[in-house]
């Protein structure tokens, strides 16, 4: 693998295989997008919607996309791995987006070119990088990419690890422990680890009724924590920690009985110090926990490509001008989605989709010599405490003093929401999976 210096060199001084972008008509040009995930795909589609005369090329390693959002539903058999596959056909046929199925191995920001493993040099007027996350397996002593593929999957970027985790859950001994090691902030899909815990608990009630789910957490709170725990309490008899009880609706009372789902916070010794992959043991401050199935969601940073291209800062994420998401490091390069530093916006698919649209508009305006407009973004993360028990966080975001801030106000499902609303939120979560995929990819 190339180091960063080699990577930057590899982009320089090569004969151009692809034609230089034609910029005859004002406002047109060639926008190259690296990464065909939610951010990259949405950007490609909306660039073509905003200016059909633009040439838009997506460079993507895989022929189709595997969606991470909703992928915990594979564990419970609600959907299959095949259901996660999203085609790029509509972006090509309906919008005229060009695809190069290849990997970027070189980058020359001065010449505005990228180079692929297939030895193509591709010139751009504007470059969007949407590299997603990289999982920091090595940040947990005893954990590694190899362990994740064979023994203790993360299943956080859907694929072989999701399939392995599903297989392990099905094969778990009666009464076994499914242990989830939750990640520190910031990470992709803030309610995700807790939704996964809920769905596995629900699944075990039917298929392994004496089995248990245990969440070991390096944090003391999470997005949607009060409403999610109320769901666990109602559905699985989970005892709500004292510090949350005052927020609960009248009549909520802990039973004191053991529950099939348990959340160990940092303050209660939930932070993982190391793991033993052979025995599936997690060592925490509090002691050792032996798992039957061990699902480790490790710390995260920007996707590897962002590091190779020199787009990250000391935090491991990519600093950008918040108005357009143009990189603070390289001009004419934009970083969107989970890899970007977006302040109050969570690292979610919905955020990436909204960032892509703002960036697409900013690029179209820049190429046409227009001043950029005022940006606005929103995010909704639906999450399930059970198949028919939905909840959410919903926000609108604005630019404020150069940073992205949420518009103040209510953001969660009301704690006293009616059963009908809770059921409706679950129905909306399922509908959203469809409408969201369409808005990004079709």
């Amino acid at each position: 693998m190339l180091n960063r210096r080699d990577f930057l060199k590899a982009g320089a001084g090569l004969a151009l295989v692809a034609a230089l972008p034609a910029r005859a008509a004002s406002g047109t040009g060639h926008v190259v997008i690296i990464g065909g995930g939610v951010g990259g795909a949405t950007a490609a589609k909306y660039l073509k919607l905003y200016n059909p005369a633009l040439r838009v090329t997506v460079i993507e390693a895989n022929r189709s996309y595997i969606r991470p959002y909703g992928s915990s539903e594979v564990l419970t058999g609600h959907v299959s791995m095949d259901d996660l596959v999203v085609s790029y056909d509509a972006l090509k046929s309906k919008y005229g987006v060009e695809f190069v199925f290849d990997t970027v191995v070189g980058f020359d920001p001065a010449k505005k070119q990228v180079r692929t493993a297939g030895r193509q040099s591709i010139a751009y007027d504007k470059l969007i990088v949407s590299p997603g996350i990289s999982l920091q397996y090595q940040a947990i002593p005893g954990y590694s990419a190899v362990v994740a593929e064979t023994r203790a999957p993360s299943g956080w970027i859907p694929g072989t690890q999701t399939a392995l985790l599903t297989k392990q859950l099905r094969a778990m001994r009666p009464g076994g422990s499914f242990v989830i090691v939750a990640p520190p902030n910031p990470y992709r899909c803030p309610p995700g680890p807790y939704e996964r815990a809920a769905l596995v608990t629900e699944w075990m009630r039917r298929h392994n009724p004496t089995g248990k789910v245990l969440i070991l957490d390096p944090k003391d709170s999470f997005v949607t924590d009060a409403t999610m725990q109320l769901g666990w309490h109602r559905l699985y008899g989970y005892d709500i920690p004292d510090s949350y009880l005052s927020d609960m609706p009248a009549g909520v009372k802990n039973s004191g009985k053991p529950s099939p789902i348990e959340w160990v916070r940092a303050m209660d010794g939930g932070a993982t110090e190391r793991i033993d992959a052979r025995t599936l043991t997690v060592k925490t401050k509090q002691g050792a926990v032996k798992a039957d199935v061990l699902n480790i969601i490790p710390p995260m940073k920007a996707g590897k490509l962002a590091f190779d291209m020199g787009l990250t800062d000391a935090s491991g994420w990519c600093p950008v001008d918040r108005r357009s998401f143009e990189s603070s490091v390289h001009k004419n390069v934009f970083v969107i989605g989970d890899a970007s530093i977006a302040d109050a916006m969570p690292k979610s698919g919905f955020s990436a989709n909204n960032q892509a649209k703002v960036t697409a508009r900013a690029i179209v305006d820049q190429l046409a010599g227009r001043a950029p407009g005022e940006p606005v973004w929103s995010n909704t993360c639906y999450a399930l405490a059970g198949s028919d028990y939905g909840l959410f966080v919903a926000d609108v975001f604005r630019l404020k003093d150069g940073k992205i801030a949420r518009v103040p106000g209510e953001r969660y499902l009301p704690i006293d929401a009616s059963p009908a609303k809770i059921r409706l939120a679950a129905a909306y979560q399922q509908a959203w999976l469809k409408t969201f995929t369409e808005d990004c990819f079709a």
Partner: protein
Amino acid sequence: MGTLMKISIFAFAALTAAFNPVHAADPTGEAMAATCAACHGTHGKLDVVEFMPLAALSEKEFVRAMQDFRSGKRPATLMGHVANGFSDIEIRAMAKYFANVE
């Protein structure tokens, strides 16, 4: 004097807001409408039944729905939270955008 000054500044601000249909720092109707698309479909067009299609909705209906969501008059799961993020002027700009989608 101080009080008078405050009053006149307030009056001026109120006048400016009333006479500027869209403030210079407001996002365009198109930009705001794009934030709805992740649930309500690109350009407000969609084929699931769970969400309201917004394409070609009359301006009046859109404005009333958003204002009622914001005030709580119309029950909602999360649309009350979302509507709270937009001003009356912005809601009208979004309404105009969706009304003109063919």
